[in-house]
Structure formats: C-alpha cells, structure tokens
C-alpha cells in the first residue's frame, strides 16, 4: 500500500535508530500526545529501539480514555431509554462507566450500534423516523470536522430525530497543563499529526516559546515516529526550541482551512473535565446555540449523575505521563482488557491496553 509500506521499512527504521544513538549525549524525556502514535510505538516496539537514555512518556492522547465519567454515564442513561438508537465508534463501547458499559447495555436489550462514520448515524436517523438517534461525538480535533458535518447535514435536511452527544477535547490546553505542572519531566513533544492536519500548528508556537521546548508535528507510521523523535532530540541536543513539521506530506502551518470553518460554525470552546485529570479550562468544544435542537445534552434530561471511579485506578497519572501502566498495582491483575477498571485499559490506543496487549511486562 502506497504511503504506508515505505514507512514501515525495517532498514529505514534501523537507520534512524542508529542516527539517534549517535546523536544523544544525555538523558531526555519526550512525550507523544496521540493514542495512534502510542499504539504504533508499542506495536512495532519502537520505544525499545531507542537508547536507554531516551524515555518516551505517553500523554493523554486517547480521547476515549479522557472522556469524563459523567459524560459516559450520561451516554449510558440515554442509550438505556426505549425509542433511542445510540450510535458510536467502536472503541467507546467497552469503556466502563460508573456501573456498566455500552456493550453490556446492548446485551440487555438497548439499541446500541457501532458506526464507522458519523454520516452513517445520520443515515440511520433518516431511516428510523420514529426513533431518536444519538451519536456519541467523542474525539480530538481530528474527528471534529466529521462530527460537525454530520450535525450540519442533519440541520440542513431538517432531520430532527438526530442529535450529537459532544465530548470533544483539544490538545494544546492539555499540553499546557502538563508543561505547567511542577512535577513535569517532559522536555520535548511530538504533536499529533492528524490533529495538526486539521488545525495546523500555529497554536503550538506560543507554547513552544513560553516553555522553551521543541515540538515536532509527527505522523503515525514507524518511520514518521523515528524521524519525529530524531528531530526532537536533535533540537534538544542543540539547545533549540520551537515547532518543526515532520509530517509535511499532510500538515501545513494553517491546517485545513475549510474544515476549520465548519468547526467555527458548529462548535464553541468550553471548559471540559478530562477523566483522570480534572477540569481543564477552555479545553473542549460544545455545540453552539444554533444547534441546540441537535444537542443530546439538552434533548435528554437524565437527572443528576453521580459518578464513581474505582479508587485503585491511576489512569490520571498514566495519562499525564507521570506513571507507566506497569506502575499500577492493579495492572494485569484486577485490571485487564477483559475487566478494565479504567479507560486506558479498554481503548486499544490507551497506554494500559497497548502495554497489556503487546506484552509489556510489569
């Protein structure tokens, strides 16, 4: 497959690994903040090819993992209602809420359906006029244009039985929280290539300047990650800070201008709680007032939601890169992909699940 296979060449990856070994003179800690990148790193064993002085820390880049518990419990309450068809991407289906999860709800009779694209959910609404169709719009900026388009399309076509349950999160505010923390060890960042494909990378420039760190916009294939890591380490060794772009085949400084236009039309910035971390101001998107008729938060009154997290789960610390999954007392014991206590063990892009599935020990 073009644009894929050539970025998975063993020889090329080893060349970069060698270049990195020759380049590094002291310990460095880098963070990637995208679940897809975490997945590639672990699946291909890339982090194990780096010199021992380079530490890769996995950031809160798994949108499924950071969806607030309150939002998940709300989704479950809506999905449990008769007359509702609840649609979602695959990964959300197994994430544990306070008491249950979407797949278990489906097993006890709720109409929960997996879709590959939000437009499929709009189609379902068209074909089921007597039911209320809700789409769980979770994700970072990458998925937002697709979700925005779905609700824009529904509004334009007058499909009133379609609504979005929005829980979008934004990367730059999360980076600020991590960098601004007194316990921060991260010295360089790999920025998420597909988030930046949509948003561009202008908003990372002030962050790089403020904290004097290198930020390299990086792709997802093994070669991309190797090169992104190499560029970040080179900047660190040379004492440079600022934003560089490894993923130039897809990312430009301004991003996808048309996509950003639909985002501005449909969404507005809001404060958002991140599961395991807490509320990060101005770190999420919600539907604008003009789309109130398609906002599942307003459409369905589910009463007060009281949430309950298992106390042993250290997801928050794992998501901030302060601990590794293996540091958790429950990892691999009470908490496995089959019986997950927290979201990073469920989502295949969550750090805990990646470590467990690919056999990373304790």
């Amino acid at each position, binding site marked *: 497959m073009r644009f894929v296979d050539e970025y998975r060449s063993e020889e090329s990856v080893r060349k970069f690994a060698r270049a990195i070994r020759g380049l590094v003179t002291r310990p460095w800690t880098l963070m990637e903040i995208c679940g897809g990148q975490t997945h590639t790193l672990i699946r291909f064993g890339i982090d194990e090819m780096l010199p021992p002085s380079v530490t890769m820390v996995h950031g809160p880049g798994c949108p499924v993992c950071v969806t607030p518990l309150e939002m998940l419990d709300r989704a479950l309450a809506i999905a449990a209602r008769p007359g509702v068809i609840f649609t979602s991407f695959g990964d959300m289906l197994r994430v544990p809420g306070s008491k249950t999860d979407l797949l278990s709800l489906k097993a006890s009779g709720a109409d929960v359906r997996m879709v590959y694209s939000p437009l499929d959910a709009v189609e379902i609404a068209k074909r089921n006029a007597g039911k209320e169709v809700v789409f769980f719009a979770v994700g970072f900026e990458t998925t937002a244009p697709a979700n925005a388009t779905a609700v824009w399309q529904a509004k334009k*076509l007058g499909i009133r039985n379609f609504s979005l349950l929005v829980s979008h999160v934004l990367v730059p505010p999360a980076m600020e929280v991590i960098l601004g923390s007194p316990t921060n060890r991260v010295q360089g960042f790999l920025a998420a290539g597909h988030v930046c494909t949509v948003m561009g990378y202008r908003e990372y420039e002030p962050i790089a300047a403020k904290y004097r760190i290198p930020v390299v916009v990086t792709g997802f294939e093994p070669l991309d990650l190797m090169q992104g890591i190499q560029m970040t380490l080179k900047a660190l060794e040379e004492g440079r800070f600022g934003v560089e772009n490894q993923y130039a085949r897809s990312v430009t400084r301004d991003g996808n201008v048309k996509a950003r236009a639909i985002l501005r039309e449909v969404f507005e910035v809001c404060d958002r709680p991140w599961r395991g971390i807490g509320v990060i101001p101005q770190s999420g998107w919600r539907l604008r007032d003009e789309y109130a008729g398609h906002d599942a938060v307003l459409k369905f009154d589910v009463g007060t939601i009281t949430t309950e997290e298992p106390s042993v789960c250290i997801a928050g610390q794992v998501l901030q890169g302060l601990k590794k999954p293996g540091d958790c007392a429950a990892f691999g014991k009470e908490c496995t992909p089959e019986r997950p206590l927290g979201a990073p063990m469920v989502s295949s892009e969550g750090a805990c699940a990646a470590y467990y599935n690919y056999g990373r020990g304790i």
Partner: protein
Amino acid sequence: MCLGVPGQVVRVETNDLGMTMGVVKFGGISKEVCLMYTPDAGVGDWVLVHVGFAISKLDEESAKEVFATLEAMGDLADLSEPPDAKG
C-alpha cells in the same frame, strides 16, 4: 482519534446538498468518502481519510523528503547491529 489512511481518489461528484463526495481506493478496495474538505483533490490525487472524510491532500514532494534524508545518512555500515539497544 487519529487513524488516517492514505488512498487515491478515483471519482469526484457533488450530492444534492452541494457536498463534494467521491470514491477513494485503498490498495485494492474502494469506499465512498466525503471530499468536501479537500476541494482541490481530483481524480488521481492521494488523500488522507479519517472516519469517512478526506482531511488532507497528500503532498508527494514532501513525502519524498524523509527518503532523501535517509539516503543522506548513507548506507547502513553494520546491518547486524541489534535494533534493541536497551539492556
């Protein structure tokens, strides 16, 4: 949410809502994809697709850069060196 797969545009059309839609080929299979966010992608161009939407048109020139960098690194002197340098 980052899984983006590169594919080649094989058809472009406009639907009743004025949305540009198309068919994109991924190594032997094709699927309908929304192209409204890559208005300059025509038949034969490569796009990056995420949850049924093309989010960028791939720039072939930039794509070649990493391979130029690799060439500049020269031949791998010792291919038998283990990739796993961690203890």
